[in-house]
Structures are given as C-alpha cells and as structure tokens.
C-alpha cells in the first residue's frame, strides 16, 4: 500500500488541495481509507491527520471501514422510490443476503442507499462500483447477483447495463444552436473581450444554478479585483434531487461548456479553471478528460490559446458524495481538499474564492449559454424569455409523466404547457427547483418559469394524484437531515428535529400543537441557518403545509398530547428480559 500511495502522491504532485483525488484512488483500491494510509498521507502532505479524517468522515463515498468489493448504492430519491426502488432494495437484500447499510459477512458485497444519482428520468437507479445502472428491476437484480457471486469483475458485465440515455425531449434556444469547438472564442476575439462581456451583459444571462445572479456582473467584479491570480470554476455538483441536465450537457456538449469557461477566463484574466464534478458522475470523467485533451491539441486550451498568447487550462476535480458542495463556497472548500463547509460571507468568491483568490463560480448551463452568446450575440439570447429572465431554461423532468427527460423552454413558459408536452396527466402537483424549491399544486399551473415567479435550477418533478404529500415532504426532509453539513446549530440540530417532528405527524402520533411546532421549527431553520441548505431545508414542509393545511390537520389526534416515541416498544427490552407479557407489561400510546 505504501508504494501505491507514493505513486498516487506523485501523480498529484504532493498537493494537499488534491486530497479528495488521492482519497478516491485509495478508496477504490482498498474499499476504504486505512488508518495507515491516513498516517502516510499526513506525513507526506504535511497536514494533521485529523484534517484527513475530517474529510473522510464528511463525504459519503469515503469510509474508514472496508466496503464490499462490489459496492452497490441505491438512489433513494423520491423519483427512484416512485419507480419501485423500495421493492428493489428488499429484493436485493434478500438475494444478496445483506441488509442495506451493511457489508456482507464475506466482504464481497455491500449495500447502501445514496442521495439522488441524477438518473431520475431512467430510474430506479444504482451505482455499482461507481458505474451507473439505470432502470434497475428484478430481472437485472437476478443477473447481477449471479455475476457478483461468480465474482465477475464489473468491467466484464454486459456493457449495455451501464448505458445512460440523454433523453433530450424538447430542445430550445440553446440546444438547437450549439456551437462548434472554438466558434465562441474566435467570435469573442474578433469582437474584443470587453465588447463580448458587453454582449453577455446585454443578453441578460443570469446564473442557471437557481440563484440567478447576473453573469456579466459576476465576471466584471472578479476582473476588477486586484490580484495576480484568478480562477474560473464550473459547478457540476448537480446534487439537487430531480436534476440531471448537467449530466446530459457534460455528456453531449462538454466542448461548449469548456468553451464557456475559457471565455470567462479570458475575460476575467484567469489562467486556471476547475470542473468540479460530483462523485456520482465519476463515470463521465474519462470522456471529459478526452475532450480537454483534444481542446489542448486544437489550441483551445493551454499555453497559447488560438495563438493569442493567452494561457488557460482546466482540471477536473471530483467530489465524493456531499450535496452541500453545490453551494459555491462549500464547493471551493472541497476543491481545496477540505470538508465542504460553506464559508462566511462576505467576502464572496469573486473577491476571495479558491485559495482566497478572486474566483468565478458558475453552473454548467451558464457556461454553455455564455459560449453560445459569444458566438451568436447578446440579442439572440435576450430575444426570448421575459424582461427579468432572459433566454431559456433547461429542465430535468422526472416523476409521473409519459416522457421524462431534458426539456428546454423560454423563460415565461407556463407550467401547464410543460406538463402537456411531457405527457403528464392526473397531476397533483409539481416540485419546481427540487426539494429546496417550491411545491406547487395543479391549481397553480398557470404560473410561469421565471426568476420572478418560479425560479429553478432545473429540477422539475411531477406527482400524480396517487402520490401522498407526506411521502414527498418526508423524503425531502430526510434528505436535508442527511445532507446538512452540521456546521451551524440551527441546521445541524434543526434538520434532525424537523425530521422527527414530521415523522411524528405523518405516522399519526401528532396532537393539537404539533403542526404549530412543525411550522415554528421550519421558520427557525429558514431564518437562522448559515447557508442555503438550512434556509431551504424546511421548504418541502412549508410549501406543502401552505397548500394543504387541512391534510396536516387531519393527521392530528384531537387530544392534548401524544408522545413522539413508541411507548410500548420502549418496554420491549425489559419485557423480554423479565420474560413477561402480562397486561401490566404493556403501555397504550395514549390514554383511553
């Protein structure tokens, strides 16, 4: 192992900022991060061992104890569950002889759940040793259990199992006008960089991650900072349950995304860029490296881009399973090889980002759009959309509809139109913008896709009338409790308390004051959390509570109080040990 680690350390040039890269390699090879490896790394990188342990324990894909040689992760996002993931999990557990959350006694296989894998349009999905398996069903499970028992390496499994479809159902402005490699950069040089920034400004482009900050303004702020070193970062940590558009953009239009990054770098004066790719998309890594290599060969990256003497290159850094890293300052911490804990702001990344240097962080789709705007002009983009929300938005549509996949619409399009296009019927409501966004009921189908109405990073999950509001709110609330980074008290403790309180109501143990308590807790999280995760973690509760107060009230018993834990179950241990089962050995949950 010592030799292996030395080799890997050499490939990362002994840079502590690349700690996640090296840990990924150790995890892949040894199925965990052995303590001896941590000691060796601490020594070689001259960082405290605690810093490495903190990283290992922060990210879901790193483990201090060995995982199976076949590591199966089942996506437990609501869309996967709606497609039968719970039955898959039970069937797999039975066939493999290992319960979720465990490694089988022979160490061959481990089974776990994981947050949304970004295959919502072709779920239920799994990652097996990092490779995506879409549309998992009992037949596939039967086969894969056989392959595992025969210890056939994953590389030799039927290749078709790992096919992932792009499912582009409705291309719009951007997807119908993609550019050729170098087209945007050439146009920018011809027009001049300042004039190109002007075009981006005139296009009205706003960040596509959901927050909607004006892109030209962000780039200008970064360019105006007094610094010798600047960075451009592409946020491909697409973790919001229900979004997968970045997966498709990177799979099919990576060239244009890299072109947008290069354009940004030329404008702000950066010579280093990073693509921060979520760990769940590691299977895209090699193809993306190939694109980067080709672009270098084409003179579109590297020391002398298009012969203009500008230097810029892009490194891909992989995440390791942490939703919070989609928050830009947490992403930067992760890029620096640390736990993804959001920073205090100000300062903002444009003035103090990666290694405390001015840094532009934009979404995959933003860079894609910027490259297109450089080629086609600002007016081309601004000609569609609304006054406050120019251009189009690429949506990831999943859930109850006939044709899930990628849809692109001009801003201002109504929800009703989108639902009709994707073949949704008997609709109860739509989760727009993922769990951190808004749940709207079908009554609101005339609302529009726009920053001024329904803002979204792209997640669009449809629920039909057979679905329960509580299943939805509960799945999302559990998700936030699982993904809270734990830095600030309101979110660390509040997301877990919210989960308990919602469970209490959903499971029918709620009484008179419990909805008020739920709402009060939600507001506390919203008001005082450190970052967007905590501030939006109660949105699933608040937006459903606002629309269906009567459903919540109906869950409550008309008594003054009921315990939030199972009283009779709390006696079980004592009952067994005393070998009793008489009437006095039991408790009613509420008094008669």
């Amino acid at each position, binding site marked *: 192992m010592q030799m292996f680690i030395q080799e890997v350390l050499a490939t990362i040039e002994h840079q502590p900022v690349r700690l996640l890269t090296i840990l990924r390699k150790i995890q892949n090879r040894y199925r965990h991060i052995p303590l001896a490896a941590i000691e060796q790394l601490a020594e070689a990188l001259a960082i405290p061992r605690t810093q490495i342990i903190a990283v290992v324990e922060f990210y879901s894909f790193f483990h201090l104890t060995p995982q199976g040689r076949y590591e199966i992760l089942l996506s437990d996002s609501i869309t996967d569950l709606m497609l039968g993931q719970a039955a898959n999990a039970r069937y797999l557990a039975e066939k493999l002889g290992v319960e979720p959350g465990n490694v089988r006694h022979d160490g061959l296989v481990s089974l776990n759940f994981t947050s949304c894998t970004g295959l919502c349009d072709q779920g239920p999905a799994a990652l097996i040793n990092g490779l995506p398996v879409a549309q998992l069903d009992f037949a596939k499970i039967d086969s894969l259990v056989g392959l595992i028992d025969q210890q056939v390496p994953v590389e030799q499994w039927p290749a078709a199992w790992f096919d992932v479809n792009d499912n582009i159902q409705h291309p719009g402005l951007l997807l119908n006008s993609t550019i050729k490699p170098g087209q945007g950069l050439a146009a920018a040089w011809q027009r001049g960089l300042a004039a190109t920034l002007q075009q981006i400004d005139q296009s009205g482009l706003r960040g596509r991650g959901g927050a909607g900050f004006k892109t030209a303004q962000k780039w200008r702020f970064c360019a105006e900072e007094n610094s010798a070193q600047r960075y451009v970062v592409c946020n491909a940590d697409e973790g919001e349950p229900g979004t997968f558009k970045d997966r498709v953009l990177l799979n099919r239009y990576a060239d244009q995304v890299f072109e947008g990054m290069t354009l940004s770098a030329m404008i702000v004066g950066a010579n280093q860029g990073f693509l921060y790719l979520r760990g769940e998309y590691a299977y895209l890594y090699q193809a993306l490296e190939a694109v980067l290599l080709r672009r270098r060969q084409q003179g579109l990256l590297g020391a002398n881009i298009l012969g203009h003497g500008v230097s810029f290159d892009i490194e891909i850094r992989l995440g390791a399973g942490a939703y919070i890293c989609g928050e830009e300052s947490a992403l930067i911490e992760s890029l620096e090889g640390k736990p993804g804990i959001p920073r205090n702001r100000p300062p903002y990344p444009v003035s103090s980002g990666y290694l405390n240097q001015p840094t532009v962080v934009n979404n995959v789709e933003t860079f894609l759009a910027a490259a297109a705007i450089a080629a086609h002009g600002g007016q081309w983009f601004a000609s569609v959309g609304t006054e406050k929300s120019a251009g189009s938005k690429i949506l990831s549509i999943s859930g109850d509809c006939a044709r899930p996949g990628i849809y692109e619409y001009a801003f201002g399009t109504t929800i009703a139109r989108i639902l009709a296009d994707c073949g949704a019927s008997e609709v109860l409501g739509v989760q727009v913008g993922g769990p951190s966004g808004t749940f709207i009921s079908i009554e609101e189908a005339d609302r529009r896709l726009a920053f001024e109405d329904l803002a979204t990073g792209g997640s669009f999950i449809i629920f039909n009338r057979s679905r329960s509001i509580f299943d939805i709110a509960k799945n999302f609330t559990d998700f936030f409790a699982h993904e809270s980074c734990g830095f600030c008290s309101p979110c660390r403790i509040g997301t877990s308390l919210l989960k308990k309180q919602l469970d209490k109501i959903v499971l029918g143990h709620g009484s008179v004051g419990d909805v008020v308590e739920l709402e009060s807790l939600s507001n506390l999280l919203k008001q005082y959390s450190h970052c967007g995760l905590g501030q939006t973690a109660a949105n699933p509760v608040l937006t459903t509570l606002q629309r269906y107060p009567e459903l919540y009230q109906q869950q409550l018993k008309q008594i*003054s109080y009921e315990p939030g834990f199972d009283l009779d179950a709390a*006696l079980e*241990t004592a009952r067994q040990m005393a*070998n*009793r089962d008489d009437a006095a*050995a039991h408790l009613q949950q509420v008094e008669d």
Partner: protein
Amino acid sequence: MASKLRVATTSLAGCFGCHMSFLDIDERLLALVEVAEFDRSPLTDIEHCGPCDIGLIEGGVCNAENVHVLREFRKNCKILVAVGACALNGGLPAMRNMIPLQDCLLEAYRDGIGVENAQIPCDPELPLLLDKVRPIHEVVKVDYFLPGCPPSADVFWAFLTALIEGRQPDLPYELVHYD
C-alpha cells in the same frame, strides 16, 4: 372565603429532593395552607390524584408506573408543572440512557459484584423499565417548568404565589439555575 386551591405532588424517577426543597419554604407553609390544600402527595395519605388546580411533578419517566401516574396527574390537574432537572431533561437517572438497558439490568441483577441469586426481577407487581428515561414533556403536555436540582424554596414560593394571585409566573435571574 373562596375555596382553597388543590395542589397534588409526586415524585417519579426522582429523589424527593425537590419535595424537600419545597418544604424549605419553612414558615411560608403556614401562609400557603391558608389558600391551598394538598391532594395526592407524600405529605398526605391520598393514593390517587383527584381533580386539582396544580400538579407538581418531580422526576423523569423511567418505567411503566411513572407513565400511569403522570397520566393520572395530567388528567386531573388543570396546571401541570415539571419540577426540577429530572422532570425537565431526565436528570441523573437519564445518565443510564447512554448504556443499553440490557447491559444495565445484567450489571445490576446478574453480573455485578456482590450479586447473589442472580435473576432479572419478573414479578408482575414490579413496573417494567423503559429503554430510556424521558423528561415528562416527552410523555404528556406540560404547562410550566421549574428548573433546578432542586429548584430552591424561593422558586416554589415565587411560582405558587404568582399562580395564587393570578399573575403569570416569572422567574428572575437569581432563581433560574439548572443545578
């Protein structure tokens, strides 16, 4: 004269220290009994709580009997008060929550030093233990909380006189402590 306020008190998983502290109001007891009378309490022989104005609960909930007594109080008392650290957060008895109940019982009745005739008590007369000791607000609705281990006599006095005079009880800084 208006009828007296009826007050009931009990100790669940507590040490009666809160009751002792209550008695420390000393001669103020005489003033208290002018306006209040005791229902079920260690101070009386009443076995079951009848309709009362105020119920004072010392101790947390550690076994099935505690649950029944607590419910009896909740049903009969207009105002239910959690008194002392154990009622508020489980207190010292809740320090067993960090040890699995099975281990606690085995240590106490089978494996511990000096145990003779080792067996887990199984008489149906004995209440079974809950897996965790709970504060009373996790089992019934509680109206007021008096922190302290124990709350001082002055806390009892300030609280009860406020209720008797129809004021909202309010504890000043000096009377709020958790130990």
